[in-house]
């Protein structure tokens, strides 16, 4: 199904009624939240490290040109190559030029920036075969779907669905048995992908960090697929965005202490791998070529503006896991690459607010995303800023704008305001006294269609306050 950010409301409605999706989301729900809570509680220094991490990122962003330049020099010194891409198209062209020719088999480790630039589609158009190797990414590639979570791309799939998918897609490898247990599912994927690992021309990974001190790219994984992707083929390509750079190994260490704990509740993911240049003269394995494609795609414009803080994001997914809206509808309803709170901020900035006007409103302003963000990104504030911009640019609902305008006019006249609200409170309070709530109200159907309006309790707040004084 083709999804779009402009169809958010419809997609959310469909998602809420999708029984299979709801079953999958219910299974995921508590896990991430509980594991993170335990991991954070076990690290008494968490808040100190959080402050430290924010300071590191702020310092790096304030000197971003310096650290990117240093990173580039170090990559070149170690025999690697750096390619710069201002746009998604430039990034895809750079990757295609490195791969060269047509009909190559390309391994992919998980990379959200590759999703953002539409790399798989570009490679397939150029005649290459793309093999996603992270189990979750592999599952959704077979299903021809985009990821629905930034660290658990197949979180929307139930085990039954995966069983059926493998049964249909693995027959061509002679694997005809129905695998239903998790262990067997994982083993079958391992078996199929192992042959791909050993027979591919190019491996592409993302990067969680770029280290300026050493020119290293860093991936954080649990499966080991990213490692097999980058050490077996002749060419290793890294796709990374400009804000991934950090000054030193010690700075990365601070961020690592937060990343796995916030993402999966692990103290450390199984594999954190630093790659620096191609294989050395006396190495017995590793890639012969090492390329880093550094993508801007609008980030340099966010630097220093009101969405600057978003550039601190380390893509842990904690804000998704703690968001009641995300938990209810899953990632696909958002319609683009990045879902949940971080996505509702990033998507409008990347594809235009006019194309994603519902996303900043897909939020109850409960504030949990901001509370759990390891990088202290004020996500709720940024969502409010986007709502404000929608109002300013007349992208919001006309009736809501009219109502706000009327309220604003009234609120600037305190005497009149008190008189009007006093009357309304008394009238509505009396009408709704018995039920305690309204099922429908004229002029407020937008509200009452989907939820009740509580009846006012006696008097206005101002009147109650005066009484207390």
């Amino acid at each position, binding site marked *: 199904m083709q999804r779009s950010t402009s169809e958010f409301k419809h997609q959310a409605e469909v998602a809420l009624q999708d029984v299979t999706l709801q079953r999958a989301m219910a299974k995921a729900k508590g*896990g991430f939240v509980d594991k993170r809570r335990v991991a954070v509680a076990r690290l008494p220094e968490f808040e100190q490290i959080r402050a430290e991490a924010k300071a590191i990122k702020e310092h790096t962003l304030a000197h971003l*040109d*310096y650290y990117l330049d240093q990173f580039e020099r170090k990559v070149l010194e170690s025999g690697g190559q750096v390619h710069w891409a201002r746009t998604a198209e430039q990034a895809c062209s750079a990757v295609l030029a490195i791969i060269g020719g047509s009909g190559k088999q390309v391994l992919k480790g998980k990379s959200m920036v590759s999703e953002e630039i539409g790399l798989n589609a570009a490679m397939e158009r150029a005649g290459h075969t793309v093999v996603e190797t992270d189990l979750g990414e592999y599952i959704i590639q077979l299903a021809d779907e985009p990821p629905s979570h930034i660290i658990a*791309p197949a979180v929307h799939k139930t085990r039954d669905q995966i069983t059926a998918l493998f049964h249909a897609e693995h027959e061509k490898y002679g694997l005809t048995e129905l695998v239903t247990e998790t262990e067997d599912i994982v083993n079958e994927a391992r078996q199929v992908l192992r042959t791909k690992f050993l027979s591919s021309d190019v491996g592409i990974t993302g990067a969680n960090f770029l280290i300026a001190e050493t020119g290293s790219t860093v991936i954080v994984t649990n499966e080991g697929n990213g490692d097999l992707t980058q050490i077996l083929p002749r060419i290793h390509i890294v796709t990374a965005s400009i804000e991934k750079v950090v000054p030193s190994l010690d700075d990365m260490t601070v961020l690592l202490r937060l990343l796995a704990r916030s993402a999966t509740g692990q103290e450390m993911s199984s594999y954190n791998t630093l790659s620096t240049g191609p294989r050395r003269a006396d190495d017995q*394995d590793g890639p012969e070529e090492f390329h880093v494609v550094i993508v*801007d795609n609008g980030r340099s414009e966010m*630097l220093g503006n009101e969405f600057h803080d978003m550039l601190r994001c380390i893509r842990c997914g904690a804000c998704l896991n703690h968001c009641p809206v995300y938990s209810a509808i899953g990632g696909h309803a958002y319609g683009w690459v990045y879902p949940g709170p971080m996505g509702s901020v990033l998507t409008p900035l990347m594809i235009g607010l006019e194309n994603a006007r519902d996303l900043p409103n897909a939020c109850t302003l409960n504030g949990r995303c901001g509370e759990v963000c390891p990088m202290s990104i004020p996500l709720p504030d940024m969502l409010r800023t986007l709502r404000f911009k929608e109002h300013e640019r007349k992208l919001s609902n006309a009736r809501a704008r009219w109502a706000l305008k009327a309220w604003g006019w009234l609120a600037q006249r305190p005497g009149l305001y008190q008189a009007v609200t006093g009357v309304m409170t008394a009238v509505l309070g009396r009408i709704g006294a018995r039920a305690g709530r309204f099922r429908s109200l004229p002029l407020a159907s937008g509200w009452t269609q989907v939820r009740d309006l509580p009846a006012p309790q006696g008097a206005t707040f101002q009147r109650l306050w005066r009484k207390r004084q």
Partner: protein
Amino acid sequence: MSSARDEIFARIRRSLRRNAALEAPPVHRSQAPESNVRPRLENDPVECFVEKLHIAAGTVDRVTAISDVVQATADYLARHALEPRLVVAEHLLIKQLTWPAEWKIHTGPATGEDHIGVGAAFAGVAETGTLVMLSGADNPTTLNFLPDDHIVVVSALQIVAHLEDAWRLLRDSVATMPRTVNLITGPSRTADVEQTIQLGAHGPRRLHVILIED
């Protein structure tokens, strides 16, 4: 036509309200790495390392001499009913071992046929039970990922408290970064099927550390 690089750097500088590159490196805390807030260890580093490795689903054999490594490996193979066909790293520590004559041993990179790999760590990190493995002629990276069973030899003297200590050791002992530095914490795993953790996704199904305490 200006290059993408020039355009990106120009945009970054414009956003930072700066016209040109910095003349001197910015002053940053990384010049004093000791400033990192380090999680307090609840135990002596070696004990901590062992404890954290267990939490990460790794196993440990504690031996008293390098010569015990062969017996420890034999015990491990027996425990898991594995055939003695090994790919071993040509690391100094491992090169001094004498493997039983009837075992099939080869060196060099691992292939898809190898089921057991034996390598040596550069350091162990107590904070998280992490092994630091460096690629090189004496430690091919494929050994860390292709075999089902990954056996790693490390001396208690190589256990450091925090990752920062491992970086300091690395800066002191090599002139340039090795091609690959693997920080390994337990065996391969995935939770991509209904968030249930399953070991042995693409990399080793088991990680076994032989810790030499002499």
